């Protein structure tokens, strides 16, 4: 009888990469916040937002792109870039390249940033989306180079830049090369600004360190998803250093909004429309308008009011 009440592993998620299971592990999806179970097809339809508590589950890059851009418009670039391991980094008997290769097999990507072009509500964009499953979407050389190329693609094609960032920060395995990607990517944004092209930055759960302290917070508009945890130092580090218990809601998207650090908190279902509207308002011109050129022509389409 007791057997019946013992915790059954059946409906708990299994370790990723466990391919021997007979039941597909993504048939049911459990909300990590309220434990609500959703049939995977329903979850996909709900954009992985819990219908009960509104928790926004973390998305893979592919899921993010699917939920954000117009169907069939995404074209990936620079997918072939991989790590070079300049430090010949080996820790705990595992070489960096081997670690990256295994992350790549798990996430079906070569590094933590997926870049390409797409349209969002009909607005063409240069898009860069992090893959958190790939080494915590840490920023190394490949990430930095792909992002700069995405910025250059935006400048060449007169496109708005949309970045979607969820990252643990700089990638330790490339040490100073990683740190310098903060400078490299942010410097490239100065050129985007000179070309009078907008950068819309979407921060998703979790986003920290070298990514929030560089390109992701140098944007014309910063949007975060509800409940996303965003900051410079991680909560554990802060607790360790200050020996203080952190207040409820610290470093949430709503906390950042309250403190004036971001423009809006937008639910996932509203994101394409909101980003599309913003891009329309920024009215990208075929040629860069000169600074001080006040009488710029508006796009023919009338701007719509923002809905909340």
């Amino acid at each position, binding site marked *: 009888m007791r057997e019946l009440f013992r915790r059954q592993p059946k409906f708990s998620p299994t370790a990723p990469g466990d391919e021997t299971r007979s039941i597909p592990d993504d048939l049911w999806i459990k909300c990590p916040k309220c434990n609500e179970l959703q049939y995977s097809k329903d979850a996909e339809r709900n954009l992985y937002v819990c219908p009960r508590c509104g928790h926004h589950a973390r998305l893979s890059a592919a899921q993010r792109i699917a939920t954000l851009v117009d169907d069939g418009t995404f074209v*990936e670039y620079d997918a072939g870039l991989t790590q070079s391991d300049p430090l010949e980094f080996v820790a705990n008997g595992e070489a960096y390249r081997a670690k990256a290769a295994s992350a790549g097999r798990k996430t079906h990507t070569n590094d933590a940033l997926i870049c390409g072009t797409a349209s969002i509500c009909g607005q063409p964009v240069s898009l860069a989306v992090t893959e958190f499953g790939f080494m915590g979407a840490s920023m190394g050389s490949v990430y930095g180079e792909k992002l700069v190329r995405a910025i250059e693609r935006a400048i060449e094609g007169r496109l708005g830049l949309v970045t979607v960032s969820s990252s643990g920060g700089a990638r330790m395995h490339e040490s100073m090369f990683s740190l*310098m990607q903060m400078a490299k990517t942010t410097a490239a944004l100065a050129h985007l600004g000179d070309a009078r092209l907008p950068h819309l930055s979407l921060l998703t759960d979790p986003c920290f360190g070298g990514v929030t302290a560089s390109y992701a*917070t140098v944007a014309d508009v910063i949007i975060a998803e509800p409940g996303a945890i965003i900051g410079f130092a991680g909560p554990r580090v802060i607790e360790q250093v200050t020996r203080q218990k952190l207040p409820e809601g610290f470093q949430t998207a709503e906390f950042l909004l309250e403190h004036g650090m971001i423009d809006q908190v937008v639910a996932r279902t509203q994101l394409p429309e909101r980003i599309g509207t913003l891009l329309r308002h920024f009215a990208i011109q075929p040629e860069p308008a000169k600074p001080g050129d006040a009488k710029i022509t508006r796009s023919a389409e009338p701007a719509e009011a923002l809905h909340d």
Partner: protein
Amino acid sequence: MTEQLNAWDRVQLARNAARPHALDYINELVKDFVELHGDRLFGDDHALIGGIGDFRGRPVIVLGHQKGANTRENIDRNFGMPRPEGYRKALRLIRQAEKFNLPVLTFIDTPAADPGLGSEERGQANAIAENLIAMAAMRVPAIATVVGEGGSGGALAISIADRILMLENAIYAVASPEACATILWKDAAQAPAAAEILRITAHDLHGFGIADEVIPEPVAAHLQPSATIQRTGDAIERHLCDIEQTIATMGIDTLVATRYAKYRGIGRWVDNGETILRNGTVTNGPNGAEHESSVQRSATR
């Protein structure tokens, strides 16, 4: 004498409390220095100092992380860990440098940006990021000298420059050896091993093409502070003269473009030469080409 030292030895030297700190360099190298306080927004940060003065015959804006020489000073200086108001003060002075066409000299010596509660509330990440973009695009020369500890983003935020100089026993790292050891082995005591792996010494960074020059320390800086400071001043002056020459012959636009090309070129990756499109099309390019940090590559773009 110090060239036999391993990475952890250098970490100890870089952190030595007796080592000359930013104000020691400023007091000896910058004549009639006037410290300028405050970010005009929230407060004055004692961990990041700035001001204006005369460096060997020309007015300059100076910025530096300031550590204390003892515990009491260190509490006042927050152990050299700037808060957002420190970075925003730096930004204010960078704008001032541009307004008056003055070179910017920075002295890097911080364990990290302050990771406290208030710093988060006041936007530490954004304060650092805004400095990166401002320094990348500023239309005046800048020289950053790592004199002690170059701690991650907290150091980077005032070190985007036309030249990065490092003292021989200075370090510059993406994460402190202790943090790295905690991540890798869940044991901060393994920091010496982490220091080796991270390749954080001046010679490492010079080898990577990130540091432009290593300023030798025949004797560790804290044992010969004055000689070290003068040697550092000579190196800064030499690079500054070189940059001024560039501006005189090729214009400020060239300087800004060269600075961008330098950062644009940092990074190493392997290009498998194929762009796999989501619709399944594969276009082939050169196979397995390895890219190093190369300024030429970006200059031709």
